[in-house]
């Protein structure tokens, strides 16, 4: 029902929408650098459990995390539809494995509602809100919080043993 144009002068965000454990999520397109197919990931030992490893992105080494593991969601089989969404958050380029990328949606800001305290096992702190578009529920993620908060502690714990 609600298309971006209908809302007249109202502002809207563009979201990259993807699937993760049967649910639909969205992130702000501005933070997405590119979307690539799954490739061989070199595992990096002794990093937090959700860090899958590193890949070579045209000569640059970037870490790849598994969002399912991050939220302790049931792990899906990697398929031909699996993708790595490369995002740029707070100066770091990071890859995120998702089950599939479906589309880019325009989300009018007034259709975004505050998140419930917990949805599909994800705490509200990691969410920007939820939007209902074409009767689909899209969970909008707060990448900065997801990538840096709490993990930051975990990353530091792991990294403590510097010389």
């Amino acid at each position, binding site marked *: 029902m609600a298309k971006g144009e209908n809302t007249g002068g109202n502002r809207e965000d563009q979201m990259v929408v993807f699937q993760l454990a049967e649910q639909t999520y969205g992130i702000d397109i501005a933070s997405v650098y590119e979307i690539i197919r799954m490739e*061989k990931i*070199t*595992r*990096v*030992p*002794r*990093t937090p459990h959700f*860090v899958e490893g*590193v*890949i*070579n992105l*045209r*000569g*640059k*080494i*970037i*870490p790849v995390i598994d969002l399912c593991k991050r939220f302790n969601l049931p792990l899906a089989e990697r398929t031909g539809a699996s993708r790595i969404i490369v995002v740029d958050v707070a*100066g*770091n*380029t*990071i890859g995120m494995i998702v089950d599939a990328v479906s589309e880019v949606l325009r989300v009018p800001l007034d259709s975004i509602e505050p998140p419930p305290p917990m949805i599909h096992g994800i705490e509200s702190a990691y969410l920007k809100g939820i939007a209902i578009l074409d009767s689909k529920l899209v969970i909008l993620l707060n990448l900065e919080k997801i*990538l840096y908060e709490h993990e930051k502690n975990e*990353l*530091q714990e*792991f*990294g403590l*043993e*510097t*010389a």
Partner: protein
Amino acid sequence: MFSDEEVSVFLDELEEKIQVLNENILVLEREGGNQEALQEIFRAAHTIKGSSAVMGYDKMASLTHEIENLLDQLRKGLLPVSGPLVDTLFAALDTLQTLRDEIVGKGVSVDIEQVVAKLREWQEAGPAPASTGAPGAAPGQLNPSAVTSAGMLEEVDEEVIRDAEIKGYQAYWVAVEIDPGCRMKSVRAFLVFETLQQVGEVIKSEPPAEDIQEGRFDTGFRVVLLTREDPDRVRSLLMTVSEVSGVDVTRIKLAEQYPPGKAVPGLREEKAGQAARAEHAEVKTIQTVRVDVQKLDTLMNLVGELVIDRTRLNRFAEIFEERFGAGSGDLVETMNEIASHLGQVAGDLQEQIMKARMLPVAQVFNRFPRMVRDLAQKLGKEVDFIVEGHETELDRNVIEVIGDPLIHLIRNALDHGIEPPEERARLGKARAGVLKLKASYMENHIIITVQDDGRGMDPARLRAKAVEKGLLDREAAERMSDPEALNLIFMPGFSTVTEVSDLSGRGVGMDIVRNHIEQIGGVVEVVSTPGVGTVFTVKLPLTLAIIRALMVELGDEQFAFPLTNVLETISVKPGEIKKVKHNEVILVRGRVLPLVRLSDIFEREDDGDKERLFVVVLGVGEKKIGVIVDKLLGELEIVIKSLGDYLGKVPCLSGATILGDGQVALIVDVRSLVKEIGVEETVYAAG
């Protein structure tokens, strides 16, 4: 206001000039009124004065103005160079440095009044004995057979000479002596000028030209001549003028302007005979641009990618040939040609960019003479500080890291190594100790040695100390060879001096020095003879960006061990592995070598029994361990890439590299690996 970039250029230049001042004031202290040094100091101070005034740093401008005034008197010989005067100059220089810090925002507001007052005091003390020995004011003493033709050049003159040099002219001091019995000096002088004007241009004369042409000179005069003629021809032409009894033509060699660290030591003037040979080198001026280091780093990364693509192209060509084979003979050949040319260009590019990142160690070394002077003064020691090989170049990353460890080694040598003058005299040594800092190349490494002829270190005392400090039990200490005992100084918590001096004992020990050096893939060794002296040898890689590594396989993944840490590789049967407590060890040539499995360290599944195991023997300092891997793949030159800020420092890994097929291989941080399994070390010692 000025842009950040302008300010940063100014600061860079300031730093450079302060360094020049430092060096040359030291020369001044050592050699008295060395004109060349004075000239350098004057020029540097003048530059700072000019640019700081433009930038609106008034305090700096007025301070350098006072310095310049004082220098001018020194230059003119109105004031002798003395110890206290040099101290004042150094004090002024330190103030200049703090003013710089103030601009950077590091320091509090600086008061320059005191130093300025001191500088003025000297100036007032100056002109009184004006009659005594002003060089250049007494051309009458000219004696062409001795090399006295060198005179003073003003900055403007140097500018003119530089311009002329670019156009292919050479500048000479021409000293002419007229027969003392000559009655028509003015006429002879006029003829000399006439002759010179035929072959070139006179841009300066001492005394001034009018005086000379009116005969107001003693028996000789000298001029600066710009000419393209051979100096010998100039001389013979002048000798044809009657009553000219002697001519001396000396080539003027201006001090190189850039880079300051490379200035040819010693002579700025050369005898004419040698000039012809050096000519080609002289005319060439070095042209430089300042480049942001980041840009160089980015370039280096891009080249790294190019190298990887080249490898991929090679592989692709192979596959292409296999698939389409003979049918496309020409195509394959062309492609191979392209690939190999690309490879060559990429290789050259890599080398050139590497070179662009290199800096002479002078960058670091130049700070030391002043430091040594101040320290020696403080400690009441006499020392000859010799620096060799400051033109040796190495990667700027290495340069940045190497400063602190070297400072520490030098301080130690001065503080603990070299004895006080009286003690040295008693021992029959020269009062002044010799401290030598030397850089040189050896294969793909640079070697820096810090050598003193002081009291040296006694292995027996070091052993006793280590036992006393509880770092070692008595038996272990006694088993140690002398060289091993010397290495005790690198142990954390070991310091040979009981009372902590404010110089060497500032909380950092030799273990930190070794840490710093090893962090950049270097090695430090010590050799010492009691009573004779100590030599520290630091071996460093030329660059940190590219290393040679031993590639190994574990499961289906590759890992890289930096070759600097790999001592050897051995192959063992599983039966040879023994268990000591819970740890695996093997015997290698009679010594116990603790073992770890790479699969354990990196949480990989171990695919069980094999007939033979491959062990990479790694060494850090005196510690050795063996790492069991699945397969040895051989050596490879790899470009080190960081794992990025997000992962931060991962234990036992120092980064990653991209292989020819685009895959990522992890680089093992041998130091932290050895440290981590340090528990086994006790086993090693007990076994």
